[in-house]
């Protein structure tokens, strides 16, 4: 007897439909899977056998051949357990033939229960796009999958339940998960109001968040660099539904979802400086998204950036430019989205005390040069805002006024983001930081007075040419924050302040 069940395998974030064909014929009892399965699928033989037996069905004592079609596509993942089991039960007539428009995914445990799989969300989205109308998914994956429109999600938790459902003896309500992106509980334990003083740093971070500009914070130890970086997600606008789906897809295939469904909080990733290139960029024999993709739509925080190996920092260049990362392997090339806001922090020298009047700096000039040399020109090129920060003095702390809350800052940022989205509606970008050189000359026009100021700034402050476009982009964001249609001279004047490190450290 022959049966055919539809399932799905992933390649990167893209799902491909796969037919599981099962044939039971006479001959010596045997169980074979063909069609380029990888190790995890070959092992599923044992899980399927035990799961069927322990669900009190008979495992056919005959020659069983399972073919995964198309035969030329490499298949991997434990989600194929369940379709194989259903295929065998269908071929041995325990289940009625299954509709071609139903896609089945799930992993089996030996007692016949169906357990959660990685990547359920991207699989279901791909299957919806290939016009399947029903997806049978593990109970534990229902929250993430239930958010998708246009396909019925049937959560099941055991083979017995699934057999009853497919035979029409049991009705399972298609699952819909509820999301309301406007009104969600406050996730964050941290708030901007906890940062005392540091007005210049706060302002720079607000501008960076408003325009998705990459930002470099430089300062002595204890100046609050890490503290402010950790609070950046609290002032970023809420994820939209589309963004949330994209982020959840990435987390789903990485197995980082904790059954709570879609991710609604902006990612904040802070990889340690011992991270390898592959963990940052993504890859491996079975390509996985790296930190750059896990911080998609959120913040990638690189604390002590000169401590990262140079090769690791350099892989950031492509994603910072294109908003995605391509990983090429012998088996083919994959692309993961990686549009993030980079927040980097560093000390002025390896010991951290260069320029601090109260601590002695113990570094040699060679060490300092080497330290600063780790930040290459091309990387610096991609950082729009640089700001130097200092520890708060006790005197300033004493009579501190109440600081602004994250919610208040967020309101301004959302407004500025809306202005940007409206302006760039037709050119397919969302924020000022994504402007190309052509876009800059179109959207960042400056008046005569500002041009003179810029020219003077280059001469007297010794700014490098690479700073020019950055200043214009940042000035555009400042103008958006203050709700000005055109860039005024004062906006340029302020933007110049955020290039102070250019001249000081990398002259």
């Amino acid at each position, binding site marked *: 007897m022959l049966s055919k069940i539809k399932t799905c395998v992933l390649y990167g974030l893209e799902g491909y439909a796969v037919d599981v064909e099962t044939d039971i014929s006479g001959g010596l009892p045997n169980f074979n899977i063909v069609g380029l399965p990888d190790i995890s699928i070959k092992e599923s033989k044992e899980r399927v056998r035990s799961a069927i037996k322990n669900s009190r069905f008979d495992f056919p004592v005959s020659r069983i051949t399972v073919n995964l079609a198309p035969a030329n596509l490499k298949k991997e993942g434990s989600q194929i357990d369940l379709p194989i089991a259903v295929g065998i039960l269908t071929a041995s007539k325990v289940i009625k033939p299954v509709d071609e428009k139903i896609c089945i995914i799930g992993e089996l445990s030996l007692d016949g229960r169906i357990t959660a799989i990685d990547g359920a969300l991207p699989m279901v989205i791909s299957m919806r796009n290939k016009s399947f109308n029903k997806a049978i998914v593990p109970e534990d994956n229902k929250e993430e999958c239930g958010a998708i429109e246009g396909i019925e999600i049937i959560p099941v938790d055991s083979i017995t339940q699934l057999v009853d459902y497919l035979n029409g003896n049991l009705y399972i309500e298609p699952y819909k998960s509820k999301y309301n992106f406007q009104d969600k509980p406050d996730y964050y334990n941290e708030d901007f109001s906890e940062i005392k003083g540091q*007005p210049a740093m706060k302002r720079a971070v607000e501008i960076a968040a408003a325009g998705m500009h990459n930002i470099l914070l430089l300062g002595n130890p204890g100046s609050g660099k890490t503290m402010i970086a950790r609070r950046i997600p609290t002032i970023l606008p809420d994820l939209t539904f589309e963004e949330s789906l994209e982020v959840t897809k990435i987390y789903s295939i990485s197995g980082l979802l904790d059954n709570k469904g879609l991710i609604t909080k902006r990612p904040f990733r802070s990889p340690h400086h011992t991270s390898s290139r592959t963990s940052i960029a993504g890859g491996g024999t079975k390509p996985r998204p790296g930190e750059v993709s896990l911080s998609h739509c959120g913040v990638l925080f690189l604390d002590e950036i000169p401590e990262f190996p140079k090769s690791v920092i350099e892989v950031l260049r492509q994603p910072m430019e294109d908003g995605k990362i391509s990983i090429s392997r012998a088996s083919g090339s994959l692309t993961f989205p990686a549009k993030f806001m980079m927040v980097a922090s560093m000390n002025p020298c390896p010991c951290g005390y260069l320029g601090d009047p109260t601590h002695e700096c113990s570094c040699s000039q060679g060490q300092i040069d080497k330290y600063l040399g780790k930040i290459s020109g091309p990387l610096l090129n991609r950082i729009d805002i640089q700001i130097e920060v200092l520890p708060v003095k006790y005197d300033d702390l004493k009579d501190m*006024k109440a600081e602004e809350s994250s919610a208040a800052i967020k309101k301004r940022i959302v407004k500025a983001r809306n202005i940007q989205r409206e302006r760039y509606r037709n050119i397919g970008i969302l924020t000022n930081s994504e402007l190309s050189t052509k876009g800059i000359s179109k959207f960042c026009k400056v008046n005569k007075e500002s041009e003179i*100021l810029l020219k003077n700034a280059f001469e007297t402050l010794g700014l490098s040419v690479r700073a020019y476009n950055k200043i214009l982009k940042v000035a555009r964001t400042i103008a958006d924050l203050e709700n000005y249609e055109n860039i005024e001279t004062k906006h340029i004047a302020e933007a110049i302040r955020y290039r102070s490190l250019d001249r000081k450290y990398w002259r």
Partner: protein
Amino acid sequence: MDNLNTNQKTLLWLSSGSVSNNNISKLLDYFGSVQNLWENFENEQLNLNFLKVETLNKLSKIKIDFEERILEKLNSEKAQIVTIFDNDYPSKLKQIEGAPYLLYYKGSLEDINNISIAVIGSRKATSYGKWAAEKLTKELSDIGVNIVSGLAVGIDTIAHKTALKYNAKTYGIIGCGINIAYPKNNRELFKQIAENKGAVITEYTFDIQPVAFNFHDRNRIISGLSEGVLVIEAQEKSGTLITAGHAANQGREIFAVPGNIDSLYSKGTNALIRDGAKITVSIDDIAEEILELKERVSLKKTFIDLGTLTDDELKIIECLQSGKNTIYVLEQETKMETGELLGNLTFLEMKGAIKVSADKISLNLSFPSISNK
């Protein structure tokens, strides 16, 4: 250079053989004249027991065809030399004890006898030190004073760069061979100094590496070439203080910029002041000790025209005058938004009125008190 006279030839030969300045004067005492030294060196070799055997062997080895080879080297490195017997030898330097017999240089020594001030300080300066170095060097440059320093990183580099920016002659004294750029980052600065009619000067022959002991000795040349030594920042035991010590021995004026008593980098300067150095808060203090500068200073004194400043900018200047000089305090005092304040600071910096560093904002020029306006 096409040919060398006997003095030049002989001193170059001794210097190439790594004979120290001290031993050169012993040799000259022994032989009575340079001419005699060059001609009769071989005959007297065995009596020169203050020189090491290796040095003697090296000297006789390199003496063969010496003139052609050294001329080729000098020309290929585009380096020039001056000896203490030449007329264009810096006159101030001639007066000091242990004046170098031979100097290698790149650039020009034409103006080296004009009034010069050495601006020195620590390699790791604070933002206060950097600001003070830039401000005082600018003011000195504006009245045509030569700036002498040691081409090290930190205060030295700022002094040279500021002098170049305001078209003053500047002289960098290095502690290694003239063909070695140390520190490497300053390679471009070396070139600019030579191009700008200043000079990079050393007493060491080609290929001598920058070892610590050389710097100790080159410091005597820095103070020797100057009328006064301005110490911007110095730690308690530092090369900067060694230079100040040389200056005192040579009878030069010592000027020291005072600093906070809790700052490591002001301990040396504050100690100098305690020991009698002139406390220096503006160029007037320097002019008071060096008479020729007095007139130049009174002619040059600049005030920024208050009419060119906006009301907001005046408000900031007023706060700065009363010592409120951090962004946080300024924001509270002026009631400006952070962004607005930062913008105004850029305008003021462009006008040359202030200097902004991360920890504080400093006034650059003398302002009449605004509250009376």
